[in-house]
Each structure stands twice: as structure tokens, then as C-alpha cells.
């Protein structure tokens, strides 16, 4: 049957008889399945309507914006991977009007962001040069900056001086001199500058700091801290050949080549390596929760795994900070490595009465406190809903034959921290920035705080190079 092309399958008239003209029956049967395509089109249209409604409903999850909400005119400066993350969060925040996107990769990053914003019915202009954008977009109120670290200072200073409020990604700058200029510019212009240490606005971190550490003092005196960000090996970032940026433009903006442009985080003078990209977020929390800046740092690190031809910064770093807190000395360990992602990222604060394990992630180590057996009862805090009822250690899980040494500490009970963030991780911090512009909130990470963290973190790379214990002078943290 199959090989018999010449025969009409159901033996009807028409093609089977060769030269005969097409008759009505042929045309009808020929078009008989076209209505299925119409049905498909209708079903697809309905599905798209449904998707759109879902998207809008998700955006409406937040309390409805007040009718008189003043619109803020926003530009995105730097629309690469991180710019996209921030954009996704901002699209869920009411009361923003996007006006411009600036990115030197006009062929790709800029085009993508403009296309997405147009889809959301924003009339945005694309720019390659931030100064041209500041010249032409007179109505801008705020600029959100997600460019490579070495551009943060010039971009932030120019935007502040043009009278815009600025949200700038961390690390504030790759140099302290650049970070200082940012602090000064914010002070001189009186404009707001929020640094993107987004955990500072995370409801679980705020709850832990304000309720568990400050009010309930659940941990007692914190003596040791440790934290990590382990990340699996990932190949260098590539790019579609037809979207290669011409050399002249790359050089104009401080990049040697397309691979360097794509992988700037690994290059000295452009970024700070994993300790800055990843560690900075968590070491910022050490300073915040301990209520102090460190006094000393020792560090070991190296380019142990990656190809030195395309990587300059250390792929593996282990560091110990010493703190003099109001309650006494504390030591804080931190490691980051980029060869194995097992165990992910978290911070652990250990006091003489309890332990706090916390992370930004909702998936693993999101938030628990463990009461030390000799601490006062936590029943009051459970009743108030600050922490969950204890999850008792299950006896059954232990190996019956294992013999516990009498010197071992009894495992403490685990209490969960009942705070879940259902929005993208960066949304609360951006929301805090826009609320501050409207005057209904104060910044959770003003430039002075971002500067202290920059001083704390950038010193690690210095300590690795110096191969010795370095000290921080208290005035180093001041601008």
C-alpha cells in the first residue's frame, strides 16, 4: 500500500486515474483536515490568554498598589545575566515605568531587554553609552546598575551627578578608591544609593536579626561563624558568533576580547573572583549579625583548578576573620570553591546557647535554629511564632549498633524559622530601594554599609597575595 503512490487509497476518483482533472471530491478531501488547524489556532489562542492572565495574576499577588502611587521612571544599565535577574524582579513591582536600557552589547543583551520590556508595553529606548542615555532621558528618576564591577564607580557617580537615584549591584566597586567616590557622590548629590547586598532586605534574614538575635537573643554569645558557597565547575561563557562585538567597541569600554568580556568576573582589574562574587553576599551578613567589622583576616587561596590562560582570580579561597564584638571575640570561617557544588551555600552562627543556620535559598539550609541543651527554654518564642515547635531528633534514624561516646554533646533540637520568601530573591531589596525613593522606607544597604563590606571582602585577596595575617584599622571602614 505504502509504495503504491499512484493509487488513491480509498479507490475514489481523482488522482488515481492520472490525468483526470481534480474534482470536487478531491478538493473537499484535500482540505478536510484544515479545520483541525483552525481548532489548533483557537486552542493556542486560549492557552496564550490563560498564560498571560496567570502572569498578570502573579504580578498582582502583592498587595494592590495604592491608586495614587507615584510612578518612578527607571533605566536598566547593564542587561546581562544579572541585569536580567533584576529586571525579572522589577517587572513584579508595581509603580515602575521603564524608560531605557543601556548595554554595550547592543546586538544581544540590549536587544533582549528592550524586547522583553516592549512586550510588557513599556516604551523603552536602547543605548550603548550611559552618558548619552543620561543626556537624552531627562525624565529618569532612578537607574539600576548591573554592569561589571570595574564599571560600578564611573556609572554610579555619573548617574548620581545627573540627579538620579541609583541601585548598584555588589561588589560596590573592584577598588576601594572607586567605592569611596561612590559614597562621596551619594553624599554630595543627596541622591539615594542602594548597594545590591540583597540579603539585607530578605524577610528571613530580617526576622533572624531583629527577632531571634536582637530581641530573643537565642544564640547567647556568638563565638564562631562559618559559611560557604560551593559551586560546581561550569564552562566558560561563550556567545553566538554572529553577535560578536567589534574589537573597537570592546576596547572603548575596557575589554581586551570577547572571551574576557563574557567572563569578566575571572579577570583582575575587572572583577574580584568568586570570593567577591559569592563571598561578598555572605561575609556582609557576618558583619551585620555580629554587629562589628573584623579586626584581622588570614586567607589561603589559589587558582587550583581552572585554566590560567582564561582565569586570573583564585578559584578556591578559604579565609578566617577575627572579630571583636560587643560581647567578646569571635572567629568566622568562610570558603568558596568552584569545583564542586555539593552542600551549596549557607551561613552558620554558633553561640553558647544556640546555632543559627540560614541561607537565601528556599531549597536547602533555608533557616533553622538549634537550642543548646544548657540554654533557657525557648517555649515563649515558639508560642510567639518566632520559631517552629522543635523537630525532635528521631531515635530510629540512628544505627542501633553505634556506641555514643559519653564525651559527645547531645544533639540539640531543630526549630525551623517560619519565614518563606515567595518572590524572586532580589525583589524585596529592589522594593526597599523604590520605597525609599517614595520616602516610605529607609535604605537597607546604603553606600556606607556597602563600603564596609567592600573593605572586608577585598582584603581577602590582599591577604592571599601577602601570605600573612592582615589587620584592619577601624578608620579603614570609614569614608
Amino acid at each position, binding site marked *: 500500500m*505504502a509504495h503504491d503512490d499512484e493509487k488513491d487509497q480509498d479507490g475514489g476518483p481523482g488522482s488515481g486515474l492520472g490525468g483526470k482533472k481534480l474534482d470536487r471530491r478531491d478538493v473537499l478531501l484535500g482540505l478536510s483536515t484544515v479545520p483541525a488547524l483552525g481548532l489548533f489556532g483557537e486552542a493556542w489562542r486560549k492557552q496564550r490568554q490563560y498564560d498571560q492572565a496567570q502572569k498578570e495574576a502573579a504580578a498582582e499577588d502583592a498587595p494592590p498598589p495604592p491608586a495614587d502611587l507615584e510612578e518612578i521612571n527607571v533605566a536598566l544599565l547593564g542587561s546581562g545575566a544579572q541585569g536580567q535577574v533584576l529586571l525579572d524582579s522589577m517587572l513584579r513591582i508595581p509603580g515602575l515605568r521603564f524608560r531605557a536600557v543601556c548595554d554595550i552589547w547592543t546586538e544581544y543583551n540590549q536587544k533582549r531587554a528592550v524586547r522583553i520590556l516592549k512586550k510588557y508595553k513599556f516604551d523603552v529606548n536602547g543605548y550603548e553609552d550611559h552618558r548619552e542615555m543620561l543626556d537624552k532621558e531627562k525624565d529618569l528618576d532612578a537607574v539600576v546598575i548591573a554592569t561589571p564591577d570595574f564599571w560600578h564607580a564611573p556609572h554610579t557617580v555619573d548617574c548620581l551627578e545627573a540627579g538620579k537615584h541609583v541601585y548598584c549591584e555588589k561588589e560596590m566597586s573592584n577598588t576601594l578608591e572607586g567605592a569611596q567616590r561612590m559614597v562621596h557622590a551619594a553624599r554630595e548629590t543627596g541622591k539615594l544609593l542602594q548597594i545590591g547586598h540583597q540579603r539585607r532586605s530578605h524577610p528571613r534574614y530580617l526576622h533572624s536579626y531583629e527577632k531571634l538575635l536582637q530581641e530573643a537573643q537565642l544564640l547567647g554569645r556568638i563565638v564562631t561563624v562559618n559559611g560557604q558557597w560551593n559551586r560546581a565547575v561550569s564552562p566558560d561563557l561563550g556567545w553566538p558568533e554572529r553577535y560578536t562585538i567589534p574589537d573597537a567597541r570592546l576596547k572603548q569600554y575596557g575589554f581586551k576580547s570577547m572571551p574576557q568580556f563574557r567572563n569578566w568576573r575571572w579577570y583582575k582589574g575587572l572583577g574580584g573572583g568568586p570570593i567577591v562574587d559569592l563571598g561578598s553576599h555572605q561575609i556582609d551578613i557576618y558583619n551585620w549579625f555580629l554587629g562589628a567589622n573584623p579586626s584581622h583576616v588570614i586567607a589561603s587561596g589559589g587558582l587550583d583548578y581552572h585554566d590560567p590562560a582564561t582565569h586570573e582570580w583564585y578559584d578556591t579561597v578559604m579565609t578566617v576573620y577575627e572579630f571583636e564584638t560587643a560581647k567578646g571575640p569571635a572567629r568566622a570561617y568562610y570558603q568558596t570553591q568552584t569545583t564542586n557544588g555539593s552542600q551549596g551555600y549557607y551561613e552558620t552562627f554558633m553561640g553558647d546557647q544556640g546555632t543559627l543556620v540560614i541561607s537565601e535559598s528556599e531549597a536547602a539550609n533555608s533557616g533553622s535554629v538549634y537550642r543548646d541543651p544548657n540554654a533557657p527554654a525557648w517555649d515563649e518564642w515558639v508560642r510567639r511564632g518566632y520559631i517552629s515547635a522543635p523537630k525532635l531528633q528521631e531515635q530510629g534514624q540512628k544505627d542501633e549498633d553505634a556506641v555514643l561516646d559519653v564525651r559527645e554533646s547531645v544533639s540539640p533540637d531543630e526549630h525551623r524559622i517560619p519565614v518563606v520568601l515567595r518572590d524572586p530573591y532580589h525583589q524585596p531589596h529592589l522594593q526597599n530601594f523604590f520605597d525609599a525613593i517614595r520616602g516610605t522606607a529607609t535604605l537597607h544597604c546604603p553606600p556606607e554599609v556597602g563600603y564596609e563590606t567592600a573593605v572586608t571582602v577585598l582584603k581577602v585577596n590582599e591577604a592571599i597575595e601577602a601570605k600573612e595575617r592582615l589587620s584592619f584599622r577601624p578608620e579603614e571602614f570609614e569614608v
Partner: protein
Amino acid sequence: MKEGTLSRVQMVTVVALRVLIGWHFLYEGVSKLTADAWSAKGYLLQSRGPLAEVFRWMAADPERLATVDQLNMWGLTLIGLGLILGCFTRLASASGIVVILLFYLCNPPFVGYFYSIPAEGSYLIVNKNLVELAALAVILVTGSGRAAGLDRIIHGLLKKRDRPADS
């Protein structure tokens, strides 16, 4: 009914099967085309089995990956249209078989293999990909486009023009 031809009921059934598979292909295609940024990268990188290296190679180079993505999206869409409309049915079903064979080989449910894709169902060697592949083979060998589909018109027109001597 002549030997080697299908009865009316049989042909209606085959055409219905063709339209359903076409619908599936078409939606797989257009949903990828209209997504913000769809790529087969994750799927390819998760490949297991004897040809895993080949699939990972497809995803390794961004330029190559972009080509694979385009071929996939447009291939699915055009095959879907061809099957629904009965237009170039044999070409569409043969291409569909190749495409599904690739999907199957990317993550074959062989003995002792377990992975995250597919996430639903329980499969041993045979999975829904293989079943759809076999169904396309039925479409291929029955040439149903010439019974009910644009092929009937195309074929008729071509014949009239090209082979006047036949009659």
C-alpha cells in the same frame, strides 16, 4: 476492498492519528518559538546512554547550539503543519521519525538507566517517544495525505501538468 488499500474506516482512523500527532508536534514547536528564551541546552546536557557524548557535543558550542535550537523549533512546527494538513505527508512523517528518534536516543530508558528525564511515568526500553515514532511509521507507510489532505490536491495538480501522457 482491494488488496493493499485501506477501507474507509481504516483511513479515517489513520488520518485522525496523523492530525493528533501533527497537533502535538505543532504545539511543541510554536510553544518553543514563542517562549522568551527557549533552548535545548539543558535537555542535551542531561543526555545519558550510548550517544550522550554526541548530544553534549551539540550543546557545547553556542553557535552550534543556536543552530540545533532553530532546527528543532522550526522542524517541529513545520512537521506539525505538514501532518495536520496532510501536506508532503511522507516527508513530514519521515522527518518526524528522525526527530523523535533523536529525542529517544538522548535519554533512552534502557535497563538500569535512571535519570530526571522523563519525569513522569514508568518506562522500560519502550517509552512514549518510541510509541509516537511507531505511530509515525504507520503514517509514513499509509500515505494518508493523498486520501485526505493537501497532498491529494498537490498530487492531482502535478499529475495533470507533468504526466499528460499517462491518461
